[in-house]
């Protein structure tokens, strides 16, 4: 039993390597921050494209839906490996794009960011869509009948109402994203899981991995509680019924 604690909860070991693992964990937070901004934006664009009405926008809707379906279905690990394994060989692209070293970050960072953005853009788009569709159709019809164009109706009537439904599921996605930042370790980017495995290989001790787990729990648990509260509040709104203000 003491062997169990030594293998996983060697606090001396955790103390020795605390800053090393923390520094690496900051890389996970960095990946998360960069991708969150990109994916939330990209997802919004996708969601709006998906909504464009009318026959002439059919190809746009079709492509958008195809994109979302594909990137929700493919495991992120595969996307990361395809990007890092394939892009460098595409000779027709300039080297700065094929092997990016932008802003001092090495190429595996950017391959990871690209892969996560492509996938989480798709998931975010679905969350936005759910939000938009939660708004009763009658709102859009009423807005159109008042003479607003599709764009104006979206901007002034539908989206403001959708906004209350979106945060809870979106926060869930962001929590997933933070955890999935660890996947970039497979292409040798020095984030917390890679560093912990290094330490494991050197010392045959898994405590660094547990320490990494602690860091994630520390950040994510409060966020998960916020999600729970938001969901409870939304449930309350739906069951009690609420009067929605249309500005």
């Amino acid at each position, binding site marked *: 039993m003491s062997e169990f604690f030594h293998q996983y909860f060697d606090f001396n070991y955790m103390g020795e390597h605390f800053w090393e693992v923390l520094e690496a964990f900051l890389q996970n937070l960095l990946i998360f921050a960069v991708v969150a901004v990109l994916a939330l934006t990209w997802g919004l664009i996708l969601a709006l494209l998906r909504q464009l009405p009318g026959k002439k926008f059919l190809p746009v809707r079709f492509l958008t839906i195809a994109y979302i379906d594909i990137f929700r279905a493919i495991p992120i690990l595969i996307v990361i490996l395809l990007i*890092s*394994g394939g892009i*460098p*060989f595409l000779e027709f692209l300039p*080297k700065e794009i*094929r*092997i990016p070293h932008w802003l001092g970050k*090495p*190429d*595996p960072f950017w391959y990871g960011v690209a892969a996560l953005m492509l996938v989480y853009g798709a998931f975010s788009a679905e969350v936005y869509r759910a939000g938009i569709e939660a708004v009763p159709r009658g709102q859009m019809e009423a807005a159109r009948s008042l003479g607003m164009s599709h764009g104006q109706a979206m901007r002034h009537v539908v989206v403001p109402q959708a906004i209350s439904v979106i945060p809870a599921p979106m926060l869930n996605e962001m929590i997933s994203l933070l955890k999935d930042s660890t996947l970039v370790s*497979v292409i*040798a980017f020095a984030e917390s899981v*890679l560093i912990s*495995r*290094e330490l*494991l*290989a*050197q010392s*045959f001790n898994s405590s660094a991995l547990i320490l990494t787990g602690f860091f994630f729990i520390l950040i994510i648990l409060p966020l998960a509680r916020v999600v729970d509260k938001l969901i409870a509040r939304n449930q309350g709104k739906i069951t009690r019924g609420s009067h929605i203000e249309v500005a």
Partner: protein
Amino acid sequence: MRSTRLTALLAVSLLAIASLATAGCGSSDDDTTSGGSEGGGGGEPLTVGSDIPYPPFEQGKPGEYTGFDIELMEAIGEKIGRAPEFQDTSFETIFRDVAQGKFEAVISAATITEEREEAVDFSNPYYLSEQAVLVKEGSAIKSLEELDGKTVAVQQGTTGQELAKEELGGSEIRPFPEGPDAVNALKAGTVEAVIIDAPVAQNAVEKSGGVEIAEKVPTEEEYGIAVAQGETELLDEINKGLEEVFDDGTYKKIYEKWFKLEPPQEIFSASHEAE
């Protein structure tokens, strides 16, 4: 009506997935194994861990593993009457795993080092090795020193990684979980060199192409077969088997098959005391 149909559809799809999954499990074993040679004898199979692939030492698909280490272990197994059963395992945990008894022995182009000896015991050396700096064909890099400040790939947990850390403080060292991944990164151009065992580098030059060895770094490394500390009986058996394989010419045959060279004479007299 609709909800029962939906539930039925969900149930059927889950059932389909479950049956596909169990069908997948049924045919193959949990641990990928390779039966030993026919002359395995009456003894129990010897479970052996190895990080596959690492050509030319170990490569191939489960059930059809091949390579210098694989054949050597099978030859030793024949001598001691225990056919080896190989388990693919990740290199960075391989010493811990054998120390904890996950398998009985390790043969994985593993260099005998003091740190590793804190967890395992090694047999007499069975291969003399060194490191090599692998670069893309036509690269301007000709030596280890020229790698200062450049991006270098290594495999996690290897002596190549240690060498890189010691000599190249100013470079970015990227540790990959598998040796071949590091070589792929070199070919893709995301790293400028790979520091890896010389025979593996040579194999990459011949088999995968587009790369060349810039410099060999003579680190005088010796590969050994690892067992858990204290397993003196097993270790003695393995050493005896190795000795017999040296003496009757089997080692020379296997060596020439995989390296197209005669084995160096030093290996036959190299010995190692378990600490």
